[in-house]
């Protein structure tokens, strides 16, 4: 019997924790033992989450696989499906398909410095990149993380990132935090504690704090569409070549496997499916594919 890739596989919620007013962390475990064995995913890949009677939404993995059959998700409540996900209890059944997408080229980047630039919810997929790189620490040179938040309340994975901010160098990475609300008390006190690693402003301001060696650095960006333009500008000024700037894109997706056509972008010379040619693309892809960023 041929496999039906559109038929979701059952999984249950094993953890659901509120992270911010609009974001929740969920841990999901697939039911089928055989599927659990083969279910694996790479940083930058995503799964399609189905809620019976509501619909389906693509959600990135926000961790590397630590236990067979388990995947971690970080979901922002923006609409029908994501709202339903927020209201699931431990033990609730959902459907999943995937993993889909190309993911980040973790092997290609071996032997180089990594610069991760995340804005808002974009930190979720980048967290899996960071976990992967830290687990394989010897394979990479310097690992630097820029995380831009609006206010302390919107900061995701707070304990974890606070730890990295305070002790990151010992844990193998240089972690920088920027915040936009100059009146935010908690952020101000974070800045007072770690002035060299935390500052007020948009995420691109953090470039002032580092020396970047363009010949052996890969940049990896994820955040709201508007952020890409500014971050890419900074990186280009610092002479990071376009093919070493990776970013992950978001489009409305109805299949995740290059069929439904919803995620198609580009022009006659270069048409891409965000779901299967991406969601990870280089800045070079964006330079020759109109409408990408």
């Amino acid at each position: 019997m041929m496999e039906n890739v559109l038929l979701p596989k059952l999984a249950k919620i094993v953890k659901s924790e509120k992270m911010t007013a609009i974001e929740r962390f969920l841990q999901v475990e697939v039911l089928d033992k055989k599927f659990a064995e083969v279910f694996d995913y790479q940083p930058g890949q995503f799964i399609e989450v189905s809620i019976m009677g509501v619909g389906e939404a693509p959600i990135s993995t926000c961790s590397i696989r630590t236990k067979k059959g388990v995947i971690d998700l970080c979901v922002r409540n923006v609409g029908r499906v994501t709202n339903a996900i927020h209201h699931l209890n431990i033990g609730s059944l959902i459907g999943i398909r995937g993993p889909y997408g190309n993911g980040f080229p973790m092997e290609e980047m071996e032997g180089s410095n990594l610069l991760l630039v995340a804005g808002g919810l974009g930190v979720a997929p980048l967290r899996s990149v960071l976990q992967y790189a830290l687990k394989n620490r010897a394979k990479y040179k310097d690992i630097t993380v820029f995380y831009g938040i609006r206010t302390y309340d919107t900061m995701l994975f707070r304990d974890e990132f606070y730890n990295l901010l305070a002790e990151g160098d010992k844990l193998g990475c240089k972690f920088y935090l920027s915040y936009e609300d100059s009146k935010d008390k908690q952020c101000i006190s974070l800045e007072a504690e770690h002035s060299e690693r935390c500052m007020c402003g948009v995420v691109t301001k953090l470039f002032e704090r580092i020396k970047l060696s363009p010949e052996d650095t890969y940049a990896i960006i994820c955040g709201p569409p508007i952020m890409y333009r500014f971050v890419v500008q900074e990186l280009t000024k610092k002479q990071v070549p376009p093919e070493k700037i990776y970013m992950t894109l978001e489009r409305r997706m109805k299949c995740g496997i290059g069929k439904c056509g919803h995620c198609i972008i580009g022009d006659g010379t270069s048409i891409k499916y965000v779901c299967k040619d991406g969601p990870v693309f280089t800045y070079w892809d964006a330079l020759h594919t109109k409408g990408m960023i």
Partner: protein
Amino acid sequence: MKYVKLPKENLDAFVENLKTHGKVYGPVKIGEYYSFQEINNSKEMSLEYSRTMIPPKKFFLKLKERLFTFNEEKGEYKETLEEEKIVVFGIHPCDINALKLMDKIYIDETPDKYYKMRRENAVIVGYGCHPDEYCFCHSLGTNYAADGFDLFLHELKDGFFVRVGSDKGNAIVSEISELIKDVEGSDIEEFRAAERKREKEYTLELNIRGITDMLALAYESEVWKEYADKCFGCGSCNLVCPTCRCYDVVDNVNLNLKSGERLRRLDSCMLRKHGLVAGGLNFRPTRIERLRNRFNCKGSLREDTLNCVGCGRCTVYCPSQIDYVEVLKKVRGEL
């Protein structure tokens, strides 16, 4: 290729045999349109048809279909796909080439089971045609089907020159050995002469050389606004296009709120909601971007060939008379 001849008087007996391979569909005239409909005998068909409004993609990617049912209480997703054998009789070369393109998309490294199963359960019988003023398949090289069919019939004075394109086609031919004959030298000459003549019947030309670059270079052109102002955004062009395959997905819940079904239906990139993403941001907010996107998608080599087979449907059925070839001539600066 194996070639045989089917005498005209045996056409009906041939259709009778095809019925043993599944429900037979053929081009039928309904009002002023043609449509692939179930037929009982060859006389119900209009084999001299120009084009059907809805292309044969409807047999493989249904206009609307159930993907599966779900039941929350039982905790199950249940596939409800049913197998059905069909024969599609009388498909023109452009539409056969369009199906080959669809195959690249739907039967790739993650094949779509619904589409693939239906393709496997179908017998494709091609039929030679003559162009009208809207056909430009000739320019795209899709006016001849070199493969992609089980049997292909070319009309001769007293019969049909039949190309046998697959083992499935060959099995059918062996079943009806008493109805067919070997081709003779005169049949081959008649077939060749007809093909030579047919090549000269095309009046509409589209220069596709460098079209991908021409489209990219015209990205900011006024052309898109000019036609977007005329476009109703109705999506008819997508529906009738044999290579348009976008679909949308919806979940329906039963009254008990515990069970239901997931449906998919053909969608259109010319509709506003096609380009929406989180937060109400739309990557193709106006008809200008949507029209431009459709032409760039059609005129790309994403699947190694252009995404258009020159069937002329989008021009014929556009309520605003937007002429596909004319738009591309403007893109190139010829008009």
